[in-house]
């Protein structure tokens, strides 16, 4: 299998929260797509924006930067942690201790 170049983002409403679900690799090539989805989710008047990283296979510094930006600007930004690769990066840069971790979205 080719390295996952496929990337998609979906978003949904779960009560007062917007859940953004990226699938694939978050890097320079896909970051704009994810940024747009987060901006759109935040614009719907929700009180909470959740980024569900469970289907993310890779995240680089561009993704980290986006996370920092989201923590600073979005209402009650939280992250549903992903697999070992995402967790490794979170640990590496210190996000692990700083970002609000949500075990699962409210509608699950």
């Amino acid at each position, binding site marked *: *299998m*080719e*390295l996952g170049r496929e990337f998609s983002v979906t978003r949904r409403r779960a009560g007062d929260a917007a859940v953004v679900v990226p699938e694939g690799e978050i*890097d*320079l*090539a896909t970051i704009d797509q994810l940024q747009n989805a987060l901006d759109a989710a935040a614009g719907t008047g929700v009180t909470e924006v959740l980024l569900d990283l469970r289907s993310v296979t*890779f995240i*680089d*510094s*561009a993704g*980290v*930067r986006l996370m*920092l*930006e989201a923590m*600073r600007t979005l209402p009650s930004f939280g992250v549903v942690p992903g697999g070992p690769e995402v967790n490794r990066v979170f*640990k*590496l*840069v*210190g996000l692990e*201790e*700083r970002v609000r971790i949500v075990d699962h979205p409210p509608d699950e």
Partner: protein
Amino acid sequence: MSGRVAAVGVAAAAAAATARSWRRLRADRQRYALIRGAALIVDSGGTTAEVIQRFRALLVPAFADECEITVGAGDHDPGATLAVPLRSRGRTIGTMALRGPSRSDREFAVLLGGRIALALENAQLESREDWLTTALGTLAEAVTIQDHNGALVYANSAAAGALGFASAEELLATPPQAIIDAYESFNEDGSPLRLEQLPARRLMAGESPGPLVVRAIHRSTGEERWRIVKATAVPGRRLAVNVIEDVTDVKRAELSQRFLAEVATVLASSLDYERTLAQIAELTVPRLADFCAVALPDVDRLRTVAVAHADPAKLRFARDYQQRYPTPLSAATGSARVLREGVSQLIDGITDELLEQAVPDPAQRAAVRGLGMRAAMIVPMLARGRAIGVITMVSAESGRRFAQGDLELAEELGRRAGTAVENARLYRERSHIAAALQRGLLPDELPDIPGLRLASLYRPAGEENLVGGDFYDAFATPTGWVLLVGDVTGRGADAASQTGQARHTLRTAGILLGDPHAALAQLNLALRERREQAPCTVALVHVSGRSAHVLCAGHPRPLLIRDGAARTVGHFGPMLGAWPDSTWRTDRVDLVEGDVLVLYTDGVTDTRGDLERFGDARLLEALRGVATAAEAVAAVDVALTAFQRGPQADDTAILALDLPPLGA
């Protein structure tokens, strides 16, 4: 007595016989005249009605009182004394009814009937030929028939029109050589067309020629036409039928497509736009023009950057002309105006009056005449709607005129060339900036540190990316040496300036404060002050004597290779520029002789291979057994090069140090 009577009788009989003979002779002469007259009528041709009219005039009253000739089956005069069928080639085609001659004339009447039938049949054949000729005349395809000498025996009006004649008659009245000489004709591959290559000629020479594609330029009008010529032999006659199809529109469209495809290839081949423009000029000659010049504005004039001409002597002449008479940007007409207004110009039929108007200087005008210009197209090179240069295409020797389709093609060429030049320029400027910035991001050379050996590797991401990203540095502080690698997110000018800031803040703070932790804290605050989120990661080693202090700020931990085995050293810490209250843990490593310490950025582990990324495990494996800093750097480089698939997405930086064994 009887003898005399007999003699008289004989004499009388002889006299009577003589009289009969005379009569018969007279009748024979008459019949001979009739037969001869009939033969003349047969040979003279004419329509059916004319044939009938002439035969009646011949036979009445010389042979009959009345004569009725009917074509086809029909009733004839019931009072006729003789009725004979008109037969030709075993077929009855009509009847002749006569009043006057006796039955004994029947044999002769049948003989006459045969002649009449033949004449009538010829008349009908001729009328069929007329009908066919009329049909051919209405065809859109040009049709000509030529004999074995090459002379035209027939041409329809389409053929006349295609060859530039007002009528078929005018065409047929023109000698074949004159028809040929009116055009300059070429084969599809551009070679001059030879007469013996024409299908009709080859047919007459006993060959079986296929269709021939011919490009013909009318010598006096300059009009260019593309034709397909097919020839077929007429069985039993030494004639060839030519069908000439005009495929100019189809051929032009095809050539335009092919031309633009080649243009696209050339434009994509290089970012050196002056070379590219020279190639573009070469491409247009001789297909689109005899002479092509590309000019770009340069201060107050148009500077010719590329010239192409089919004839090397003329090329020199054209170059000299461009140098001697550069076009000022303020010129009211011509290329300067095209550049100003961004609208193309087609000048058809360049006359002396036109030249006098456009080129007031007599010497210059004489030079222009030397170019033998007949028609010209000047098109702007457009980039984002703005003219950034002009392409001039001139028709001279070929004598061809430019059609609307040619101008459209030239305009398209101008658009594409304009975009390519603009992109190449932007790239060139960007490369300059990138190179300048890059020099600011990396140390000119690694310092000599007593008792330590350093090695580094920097693999910038693909050329299409701007600088930014990774950096490394090594410098002395009052308390020891600092070695570091770092990575800022993002690309472009912002990232580059941030990288510069990171490197210089760490260096200044490190040297002034002598404390690596304080340097990280300083950079953390400095980055927080930036308007944009500007996180940055750093791995830092402070070497003092034999002890190394390791700090990581959001960065992969350094690797220590001791006795051939690699392991990570240090602890993860928060990245810089994210949180104001961050602190970093300092881990101390006591170095021994032969130790190798490797600092690297995540460009190494994130490198893409066929199935996955390079990752930590492959890095540890690559470093297994290395004994020096140089070996470590080389080993990673080799492993990455072998592993990598596709373009490099991210910068990669490696900085290694080793503690040489004593005596090494």
